[in-house]
């Protein structure tokens, strides 16, 4: 009897306090977002980019790594719509394939930031006290690091120690993965190392205030385990703002890849990343502006799209957030 009663309570608690507004919130948010023309435009652009990335081999007129030296630096024209690079490789095809790189950098950055950051933050905020204190001290220390410098140092370390690692060892295994990704894997790790920090702080703050709320008290009183509460009650309530943050951070990850390429820590050739193309092309800005301008444009459009979408999400999901 007692058991039954508890279950009933729990059921009510979920439906009344957390789930119903949840459904409304998401529906409501979606409706609000659709009203925002810019956000819709951003979402459409991102969808198109994903389609391009997935179907790159069918869309691109040439393969990204093939070209003839005789066509080098060809200007935009009928053979090469956007011109060709120093090796006579079609720029348009490289930009199309490059969509894969930039999107995966953005998405992987966002996913790691989200998963690690939210988990860390929720645990820290929900438990509070000593746990929170220690976990947040770690975040504080990480915050003290000049992120850029730390990542440069890490990237040099990855690229060097793993590159000379003997095959068969763990380091050799990592290096093989990196090779298979065309040099992207270490960039993912580099971004992942610091990307979660901001997310952890925000979700911790929200979790900290949520744990004082009545419905959490109620859930606890009805005998839910801490894990259950975190997953069912705390997480759903802070996921919205976190999604907004992460969407707005994606452009940062994408430019970061470009930055790494610029200082020689980017992908391996002939992997076509926009960042690599820009840094190969900017030197030739005076002679062949198309080499840097078109990949730059692709980068700018992608970033604009994510920003539009992020702004839209923010207005829709969390109108109070700045």
């Amino acid at each position, binding site marked *: 009897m007692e058991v039954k009663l508890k279950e009933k309570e729990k059921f009510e608690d979920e439906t009344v306090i957390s789930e119903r507004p949840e459904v409304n919130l998401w529906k409501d948010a979606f409706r609000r977002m659709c009203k925002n023309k810019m956000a819709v435009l951003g979402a459409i652009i991102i969808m198109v980019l994903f389609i391009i990335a997935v179907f790159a081999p069918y869309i691109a007129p040439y393969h990204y790594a093939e070209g003839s030296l005789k066509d080098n630096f060809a200007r935009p024209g009928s053979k090469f719509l956007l011109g060709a690079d120093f090796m006579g490789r079609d720029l348009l095809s490289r930009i199309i394939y490059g969509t894969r790189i930039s999107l995966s950098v953005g998405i992987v950055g966002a996913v790691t930031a989200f998963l690690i950051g939210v988990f860390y933050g929720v645990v820290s905020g929900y438990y509070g006290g000593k746990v929170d204190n220690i976990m947040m001290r770690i975040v504080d*220390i990480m915050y003290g690091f000049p992120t850029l410098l730390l990542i440069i140092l890490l990237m040099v370390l990855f690229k*060097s120690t793993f590159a000379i690692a003997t095959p068969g060892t763990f380091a050799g295994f990592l290096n093989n993965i990196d090779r298979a990704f065309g040099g992207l894997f270490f960039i993912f790790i580099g971004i992942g190392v610091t990307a979660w920090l901001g997310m952890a702080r925000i979700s911790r703050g929200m979790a900290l205030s949520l744990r004082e709320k009545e419905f959490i008290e109620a859930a606890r009183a009805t005998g839910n385990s801490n894990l259950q509460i975190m997953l069912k009650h705390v997480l759903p309530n802070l996921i919205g703002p976190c999604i907004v943050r992460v969407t707005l951070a994606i452009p940062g990850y994408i430019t970061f890849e470009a930055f790494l390429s610029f200082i020689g820590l980017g992908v391996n050739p002939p992997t076509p990343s926009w960042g690599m193309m820009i*840094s190969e092309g900017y030197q030739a800005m005076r002679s062949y502006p198309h080499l840097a301008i078109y990949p730059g444009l692709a980068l700018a459009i992608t970033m*604009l799209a994510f920003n*539009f979408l992020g702004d839209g999400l923010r207005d829709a999901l969390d109108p109070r957030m700045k």
Partner: protein
Amino acid sequence: MINFVIRRILWSIPVLLIISLVTFGLGHAIPGGPFDKEKPLPAEIIANLEAYYGLDDPLWKQYTDYLWNALHGDFGPSYSSRSRTVNDIISTHFPVSAQLGVLALIVAMVVGIPLGMISALKQNSFIDYFCMFLALLGVSVPAMTLGPLLIWFFALKLHILPVARWGTWQQAILPAVTLGIGSAALLARLTRASMLQVIREDYIRTARAKGVSEKNVTIHHALKNALIPVVTVIGPMFAALVTGSLIVEQIFAIPGCGKYFVTSITNRDYPVVLGIMLLYAVIIIAANLLVDITYSWIDPRIRYT
């Protein structure tokens, strides 16, 4: 309040220690030493050099020696440029990075805040969209595209600004704009959001209802409050600008600290890497502390833990 500040400053000591330890460890973990050259030196010479710089000591001793000297204000020699110490390098190059950072911050504020205000006041008009589009464009164009474009247009087409180098105010304009434009965009968006929120607050409505002129409302009531969140980001923004000027320094041939970092890693010049890392960490910690102090000053309800 003072207790809080003191506690935070004390806390920054272990943070710096850990940062120095991690940097030291990472630096030494990278294969290759400072004296590996294309034409290798005889083993005896390398041994000699390592003895001279204390690199033959066990790592823990090297680290503690470094800390001890650093505590006395000596951040060690530079292996790659023998006539200078890390102190020399930082004291000549950091001021340049700092100047560049300040100028970029000014650009960001002068461009970003007005843009955001205008946007907010004309919310959902064409002007609003235009300003916000500009702002987004600012975040979206990477410095390595923007820099060469600005050089080409202003220096080689219009001949009104010099191409590169540092020293005169004309030379400072292009790099400061290249560096600051992204932050300007961020500030514009922040100002707009904060302004929109403030305009809807009760006291603004009350002020309007009392018959205060629109101009007065905007300037005296709305602006002041809307700028509070903006002010709080300026500290970290400055830290980010100072520590993130690497590309701009390289494109415009500015003798700042940023590009030193990458070359020092390449040269395995550990003391320089450590010195710059610690300096930047101090700036970042100070900026974060500043934010917390500003917050507490603005909103006394915030508790210090």
